[in-house]
């Protein structure tokens, strides 16, 4: 049942992605409604699939990497739907839904049995959930940053095309960028702390400087300075947008680190 739902979810997200991207190129807003409904339908199936998996898994304390990525994708869609519901920024879907799809597809591409960590600590779900939520925050910041840079470029070069008309105002994007980092940063901090604690129980040391931990710490430091810079010396608007795009690269590298470590753990 879970895998059937996953397949349906993936198909729906794929359709939503195509339709959201087409919507970017067309003047009419009609497609965005369709895309939104398809995404919402996908989200329902996704939720069913996740619940089904959690209830049938032999040991719920052991999230596999596959589950973690799928959960990540689920949270991205959730956040998108919430932001969309509050601000009616359809164009956000054109960026978030494809990312969620990529995350889900890479989840499916990984062997289902790859574990993230050995099942030694009950709070592993807490660590994964918190880190993932933090990462979702940074993903939204990244998307807002990319949209900011596009809109900035369009305004500067005075190209008033369809994309220009669909993208929201610059200060809204900057605000979205700031809010997502402000929400994401403490979550990631807690994620790292719980991860370190679970590592302490597991291996007896808080930090072992494996690729995952190194990546996570670099990411944490980076966003720490991004936030600090914004609050003190005015790193906002275009600079903040650039920084969050770079920061997202750190996030991706960390995720790759996690995968590498998992494979290492497997072999």
């Amino acid at each position: 049942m879970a895998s059937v739902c996953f397949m349906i979810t993936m198909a729906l997200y794929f359709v939503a992605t195509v339709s959201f991207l087409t919507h970017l190129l067309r003047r009419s807003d009609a497609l965005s409604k369709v895309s939104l409904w398809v995404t919402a339908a996908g989200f329902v199936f996704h939720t069913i699939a996740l619940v089904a998996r959690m209830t049938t898994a032999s040991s719920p304390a052991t999230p596999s990497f596959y589950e973690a990525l799928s959960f990540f994708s689920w949270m991205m869609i959730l956040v998108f739907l919430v932001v969309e519901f509050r601000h009616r920024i359809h164009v956000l879907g054109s960026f978030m839904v494809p990312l969620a799809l990529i995350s889900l597809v890479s989840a499916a591409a990984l062997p289902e049995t790859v574990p993230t960590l050995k099942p030694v600590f009950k709070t592993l779900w807490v660590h994964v959930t918190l880190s993932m939520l933090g990462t979702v925050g940074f993903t939204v910041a990244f998307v807002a940053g990319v949209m900011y840079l596009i809109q900035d470029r369009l305004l500067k070069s005075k190209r008033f095309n369809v994309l220009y008309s669909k993208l929201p105002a610059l200060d809204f994007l900057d605000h979205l960028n700031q809010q997502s980092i402000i929400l994401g940063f403490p979550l990631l901090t807690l994620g790292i702390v719980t991860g370190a604690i679970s590592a302490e129980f597991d291996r007896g040391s808080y930090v072992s400087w494996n690729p995952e931990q190194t990546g996570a710490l670099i990411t944490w430091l980076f966003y720490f300075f991004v936030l600090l810079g914004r609050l003190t010396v005015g790193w906002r608007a275009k600079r903040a947008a650039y920084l969050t795009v770079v920061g997202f690269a750190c996030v991706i590298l960390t995720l790759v680190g996690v995968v590498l470590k998992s494979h290492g753990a497997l072999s």
Partner: protein
Amino acid sequence: MHVIVVGLSHKTAPVEVREKLAVPESRLGEALGRLCSYSGVKEGVLLSTCNRVEVYSVVEDVEEGYARIQEFLADTHLSLSSEQLTPHLYWHTGDRAIAHLFRVAASLDSMIIGESQILGQLKNAFEVALAHKTTGVIMNKVVKKAISVAKRVRTETKISEMAVSVSYAAVELAKKIFSNLDEKTVLLVGAGEMAKLAARHLIAQGVHQVRITTRTPQHAIDLAEQFGGIPVPFDQFKDEMAAADIVLVSTGAAHYLIGAEDVQRAVDKRGNRPMFLIDISVPRNIDPAVRHVDNAFLFDIDDLKQRVEQNRAERLQEAEKAERMVVEEVGATLEWMKALEVTPTIVALRSRVDAIKQAEVEKVMSRLAHLSQQDRELVEGMASSIVNKLIHRTMVTLKAEVNSSNGPAFVEAARRFFHLDQSSTQNSDEEDPESRLRYLSPDPVESAHEEPEATVRKRAS
């Protein structure tokens, strides 16, 4: 009964002719009274704006009606003769008249396509006509429909969304930089007309504060009073720039007043919060090198004009969509009008009651199998006679009122009372079994609530 329109607009007549024909609102009632005193003119609405003067009317005979209304228009101004008007007028009847009204209401015939004033003007004209009782069933329906078509066009297309004036284009751009203008401050440098207009638009959008500076201090004080703003000394305005989110510049200076380094300083002071600069002066007053400053967005008069041109083109595209809606809605309205004709109504009424009678007779006969042939005929005869007597007065009244001004109202009433809009009247004389069945067992829910217009619309779509 025919719907006709006779009139002229900015497309057919120069302003010298239009201004002579224009009827001021205070005299609209009197003019309407005069219009409806012409023989053969049953209903009338007079739409008079600076861009058009049009008479929409319901008349008995089309040609006769055209002539009467042309006479009416020529009479509005002493120096005009009917012949002088002819080259400027247009005449439409039936579907073309209705389509014309719908297009006018939806602002497809306006000088600036998509402008919203015309709908208010039409509503006003209609209200005056209602107050003077110069409209009847047909005009009421058609004008109300025109208003709803206009609203549909406004909500379903983007025809009125895009700015088509330079000053409004500035507001539109501002909204792509600031999502909320409420807390923003505008600095107005100089007092060029277009800049003042743009400032007015921004104030209308709710900007928090306007600061004004001009070379002559008194001028700035006067303007500040006018806009409810704060005057700023001219030699200090560059220091004030950091506090302004939007800078509108329009002075007569022949050189750059604001350089890139001024803007850079302001942006730095603002902690990189974006700044929107509009230079509406010719020659330009802001150094174009400002475009290299991050988080500062400079637009000059040509950029705004380019935006306006694009928007115009987009409005035209949207107008095509709107035209399709108009065609659709005209179809629906024509269907409704056709149903108002007397003959098909009488035929429909006849077959409706016959069907009811037949059904009841059959029901009773099946239970009275023991009756002789003679008795059966007697029962059937009684049923026929009741039915005929019941509808006799209705038939007679309908025929008598055909040509009165209330004719359509009677037809409409008869159609509602006897529920004649369930099946199309056109084919009711060759009674198809389906519609008969529907008469026999009318669906209580559907028949109780369905408005005739709703059925018409369904049929049209």
